[in-house]
């Protein structure tokens, strides 16, 4: 709980001063430079977090595929564990895409909450996938 409180306070203090430059994809303007819609920093942050999570799970899957024969010889468990995650990963990817399209079409708080929930599922799955990666250990020789 302490971590949550610290993170929440950092958000309030730290992010309050960060702005979206006018004219960007999350703060669109018309040809006259007038805002088309209100800048949407929360949408930017959620998309950025999703991009990180997606790149991670994509990297884990690719790492396993690229090194499959070697990893299989070391332990079949890695592929088997990832194979349990793969169908779920496609599902949460599709869920996020669906929620994002809904939010872009109708950017109301309820749809943002749905998008946030979809992101949480992606992050949870990504953490599970990344935690399966073999852990490298280094001997210092001391």
């Amino acid at each position, binding site marked *: 709980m302490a971590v949550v409180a610290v993170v929440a306070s950092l958000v309030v203090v730290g992010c309050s001063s960060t702005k979206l430059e006018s004219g960007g994809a999350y703060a669109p303007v018309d040809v006259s430079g007038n805002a088309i819609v209100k800048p949407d920093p929360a949408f930017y942050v959620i*998309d950025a977090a999703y991009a990180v999570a997606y790149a*991670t799970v994509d*990297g884990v899957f690719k790492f396993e*595929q690229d090194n499959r024969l070697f990893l299989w010889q070391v332990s079949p468990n890695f592929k088997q564990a990832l194979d349990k995650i793969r169908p779920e990963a496609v599902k949460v990817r599709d869920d996020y895409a669906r929620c994002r399209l809904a939010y872009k079409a109708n950017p109301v708080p309820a749809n943002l909450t749905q998008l946030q929930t979809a992101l949480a599922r992606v992050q949870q799955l990504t953490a599970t996938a990344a935690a399966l990666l073999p852990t*490298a250990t280094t001997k210092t020789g001391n």
Partner: protein
Amino acid sequence: MNAATLALVLQGLTALVAAAPQVEALVKQVKDLISALFTAKQITKAQQDAMMAQVDAIVALSQAGIVPSHWAVQPDPQ
């Protein structure tokens, strides 16, 4: 900015790093993102456009029903 939303997003990022500290690329991406959020005075137009394009591309894959081969369950090696 919605503090509750951001807090939850950052919690998720923190959990990712905690689950897989050995994934250096992930740790760097998360650090860069959090650093940008807390130290940058402004998310530039170029940064916004790049992010939108990146996620739009992922969504397009999903809409097209494309599943990359490494995301699909394939037969075990013999």
